[in-house]
């Protein structure tokens, strides 16, 4: 069972790797060029020590120095080193461009994918999580791919080349040096076994700490209001200590690695000079060969020592890639049906027929909902908190599809229209106002592609936000900062109302559209709202019963069912649930 899991994990890892490679091989020529450059630059670099050894041999002759040979070898060395450096710079530039192309594509893929995902996906994941995938995770994948692939391949060529050169120079010395390889391997294994979980813990603790401070700072005023600074600081202190301790633990083992690798190198040097001198003593080795051998041995052990680092990086890159692919693999909103109609200029007749829906399969929010709104009518939906009012909006806009029953617009099931045309037929003002980082103008103009300045001003005036905007030093080009902090809740809502006013849609949804606007301002914008609602089929969701009294049809929703429906007067006369909540506001 366990081995099975392990095999599957390995298999999935291989699949992830394969998908990553596919991103690479999209750029075949660049990849081929990278390979060619890499091999040639490394081979040239490998020739260097050999040449320097030959040059030194030419110096250390019984007969004195052979200057011709020294010149020749030195000139060759210079040429090869220059060529190798130029090639390796070209290689790194090429590699950066290639990996940036890949990362750009990947980021855009993820972002575009996000836009096609159903809204439910965003309700489940935190913003920080998604941001991490687009920035940090993709960066990790990129850093690892562009460095590690090069390093592994370079390392391979270097190890093989250096080994061959050492065999050729002195098999006996090689036999001695090979002794250090198990030490390197041992250090490597030890490192990956003991350090990897420590690094994982280190990131986890740090993430926990950062999450805590982010959360607490978002409640800064509340903490102050309750005078809880000290208690919260204590909690922070504990998490901080955990985080730095985890950091230290990782460092403690990590700090062994650098010196240990150096030691292995130095130990190799000790062996080579001692044994090399002995061999030289017995005339089995030329002095220049000791030099070459020393240089090759460093190249030989380097990549082996590095392998531990690289494996760690590759592991984390694969984990990051998995998260990225997780987004790419999420199922998007269901495709439009093959012969989907484009909804243009709808009459605005809306009907719910025995609609049943729940966000989770076993928790029903709407049990059995049926009603009909004729073109141009205003339908108000009222009821206690959590009765499923906002869910109706989600269904109308097809953010979610019902599990049973039908929703029809102009007599056709909404699922037979293209989603885009369906949504374009609606304009809406939601309970949660949404403004993005940009100017006030951009935020209002968002409601209609290519809205002119006049249109935006007119909409702002109609929504009674123009005075405020014009009182700002920068007017319409004033920036809306992070989440619209410099605007009050009510002002934000007026902005989104102005945005909706720009939209030419035939159906209108007002979900608590004026809940944060005080009633006097609401009164002021009522005219504008009435104009906005004119000739449109409107769905109004509100707590304030005053705002729904004039509706053509009031639906009283309770526990997912319509318990009453009718006009205001009829419902009051009936003396049911509606009249009960109506009376409650005067108690």
């Amino acid at each position, binding site marked *: 069972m366990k081995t099975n899991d392990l095999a599957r994990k390995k298999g999935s890892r291989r699949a992830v790797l394969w998908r990553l490679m596919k991103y690479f091989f999209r750029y075949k020529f660049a990849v081929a060029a990278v390979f060619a450059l890499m091999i040639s630059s490394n081979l040239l670099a490998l020739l260097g020590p050999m040449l320097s050894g030959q040059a030194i041999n030419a110096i250390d002759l019984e007969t*004195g120095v052979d200057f011709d040979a020294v010149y020749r070898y030195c000139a060759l060395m210079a040429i090869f080193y220059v060529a190798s450096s130029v090639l390796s710079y070209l290689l790194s530039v090429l590699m950066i461009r290639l990996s940036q192309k890949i990362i*750009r594509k990947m*980021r855009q893929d993820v*972002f575009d994918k996000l836009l096609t995902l159903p809204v439910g996906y965003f309700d489940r994941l935190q913003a920080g999580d998604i941001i991490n995938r687009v920035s940090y995770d993709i960066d990790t994948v990129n850093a690892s791919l562009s460095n590690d692939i090069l390093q592994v391949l370079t390392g391979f060529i270097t190890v093989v080349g250096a080994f061959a050169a050492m065999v050729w120079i002195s098999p006996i010395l090689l036999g001695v040096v090979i002794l250090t390889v198990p030490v390197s391997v041992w250090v490597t294994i030890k490192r990956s076994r003991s350090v990897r979980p420590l690094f994982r813990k280190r990131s986890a603790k740090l993430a926990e700490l950062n999450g805590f401070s982010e959360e607490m700072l978002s409640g800064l005023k*509340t903490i102050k209001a309750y005078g809880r600074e000290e208690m*919260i600081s204590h909690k922070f202190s504990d998490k901080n200590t955990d985080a730095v301790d985890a950091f230290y633990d990782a460092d403690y083992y990590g700090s062994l690695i650098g010196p240990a690798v150096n030691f292995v190198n130095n130990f190799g040097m000790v062996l080579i000079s001692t044994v090399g*001198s002995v061999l030289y003593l017995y005339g089995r080795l030329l002095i220049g060969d000791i030099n070459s051998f020393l240089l090759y041995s460093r190249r030989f052990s380097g990549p082996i020592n590095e392998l531990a680092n690289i494996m760690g990086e590759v592991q984390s890159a694969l984990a990051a890639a998995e998260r990225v692919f997780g987004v790419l693999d999420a199922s998007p909103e269901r495709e439009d049906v093959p012969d989907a109609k484009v909804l243009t200029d709808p009459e605005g007749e809306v009907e719910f027929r025995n609609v049943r829906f729940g966000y989770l399969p076993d928790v029903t929010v709407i049990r059995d909902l049926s009603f009909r709104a004729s073109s141009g009518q205003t339908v108000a939906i009222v009821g206690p908190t959590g009765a499923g009012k906002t869910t109706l909006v989600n269904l109308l806009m097809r953010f979610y599809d019902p599990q049973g029953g039908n929703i029809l617009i102009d007599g056709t099931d909404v699922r037979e229209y293209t989603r885009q045309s369906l949504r374009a037929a609606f304009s809406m003002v939601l309970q949660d106002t949404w403004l993005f980082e940009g100017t006030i103008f951009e935020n209002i103009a968002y409601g209609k592609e290519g809205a002119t300045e006049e249109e935006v001003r007119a909409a702002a005036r109609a929504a009674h936000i123009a005075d405020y905007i014009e009182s700002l030093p920068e007017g319409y080009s004033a920036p809306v900062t992070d989440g619209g902090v410099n605007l009050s809740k009510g002002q934000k809502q007026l902005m989104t109302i102005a945005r909706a006013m720009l939209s030419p849609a035939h159906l209108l949804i007002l979900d608590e559209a004026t809940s944060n606007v005080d009633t*006097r301002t609401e009164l002021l914008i009522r005219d504008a709202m009435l104009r906005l609602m004119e000739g449109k089929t409107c769905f109004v969701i509100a707590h304030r019963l005053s705002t729904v009294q004039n509706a053509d049809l009031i639906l009283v929703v309770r526990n997912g069912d319509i318990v009453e429906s009718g006009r205001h007067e009829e419902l009051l006369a009936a003396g049911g649930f509606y009249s009960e909540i109506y009376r409650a506001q005067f108690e």
Partner: protein
Amino acid sequence: MKLVFSYLARYKWRMSVGLFIKALGTVAELFLPMIMAYMIDEIAPAQDLALLIVWGAVMLVCALVALFGNVIANRMASRVARDTTERLRRDLFVKTLALSARQSDEFTVPSLVSRLSSDTYNVHNMIGMMQRLGVRAPILVIGGVALTFVVEPVLALVLLAVVPFLTVVVIVVSMRGIVLYTDLQRAVDGMVRKVRDDYTGIRVIKALSRTDYESRSFAAINDRVVHCETKAGVTMGITNPVLNLLLNLGMTAVILVGAYRVASDNALVGEIIAFTSYFTIILNAVIMVSRIFVNYSKGGASAKRIAQVLNAPEDLLPVREAGLTPRTGEMIRFEGVSFGYGLGVPVVKDISFSVRRGESLGVIGATGSGKSTLVSLMLRFYEAEAGKVFIDGRDVRSYEDAELRGKFGVVLQNDFLMAASVRENIDFERSLADGAIRTAAACARADGFIDALEEGYESELTARGANFSGGQKQRLLIARALAGRPDILILDDSSSALDYKTDAQLRSAILENFPETTIVMIAQRISSVRFADKILVLDGGRIVGFGSDKELMKTCEVYRNIYRSQHGEEEAEHEDE
């Protein structure tokens, strides 16, 4: 940087010992090539096998000293880095909580968060790295060059000629790199902002079918990030090939010059081999130095950002002056108070009113009329620009923060819930008795849904309480405010998500259970404030009415308008009769 040094000062002995051990280990390493040259040039020709082995053993000892010296020193350095960061980060957090509202508005919360997280992380890395490599690299470079002089002065000069070039390349590229990486960081910030915006606005984007537009605008930001990163990468990528090239050419020159020196009997071959080893050491050290530069500039910039917060002057300290005369008998009193958040636009103007202990105050007015600002002034988040605010008979400026705020139970607009259990959210770190929590929850009409939860009071909330509905969240917050049995209860627009019925029940429960408490109710709905003994009507930051519901219906035009707008004409007339 001064900041970091002041934090390090406490560990100067530990650091000195660590750095000394480090220097010892590093120097031991430097002797290796020299011993090797001696073995090849002096002992091997003398055919002394025993001596060869002895010197080989000496080399081994040096290598071991290097290993242990470096490991011990690295660990000591890590400890210093850990202890420093722990203190620095804790002080930063405490200071952040102590910033006045005006100060934290200026820094902005996201910036404070990143100072606490990524900036302290950068400083942590820098402190560790500076100790580990900051000593090692210079010793290796300087010591390496110095020892080559001992081995062979003329050849050493050849090597030394390369060093200025190396230094110039490292400095120029690192400086350029800092600028480029700052640009990149800014571009990445833009990308993060875009993703965050679209995450929160996905419904609107889909509703308006603006996905193409969003995709295009992301592509522009993406291109910018890629451009910056490529530029930075291509620039930084110069370092290694150029350093390698310079040193390798230097080595070629050494061999060439060495040939002449050997021919004229001024040098030995083993010395040339020692040189090639020193070259490798110096090359690695120089690459280390270039890494230190990048790390230092990153950490230095972060340290500066941290220092900005730590050095922010203490704002809004209590004032002990004779001029602060107490007024007894009144729980809340405003005397000619004016205030604005800056920008030169006053938000409230000339506000005067008072409320006695046990009375209730309703505040109603248009969006942006300054209702919440009154709360901020009572809690002394901000200080009035003109006039005085008295709480429980004393000028707010005469209080210690804790004493003043201890009198309040507050639900702010957009208040915050933690990712913790229901109980912890109501308790809010006050160690309240279980009974108090349950009573408060019952009074806030939250007990019903809490008991219906599978784990009751131990149920966990997700971040910002996203797994609870708006009405449930507001009731939890009200329970939190009630649980401390405050002298003054402030509910700022905190029942807007409740339906009228629940709202009314909640109000009567509070009145019944908290008769001693002065209640301040800020609301949009007139039905939420009608019950209050005194109602304050704000318009454009000024008081346009103050009195009971009955009085205001007679005297205040604005109040009547609000009433009419909410209840329709008939009821208003009806009420008048």
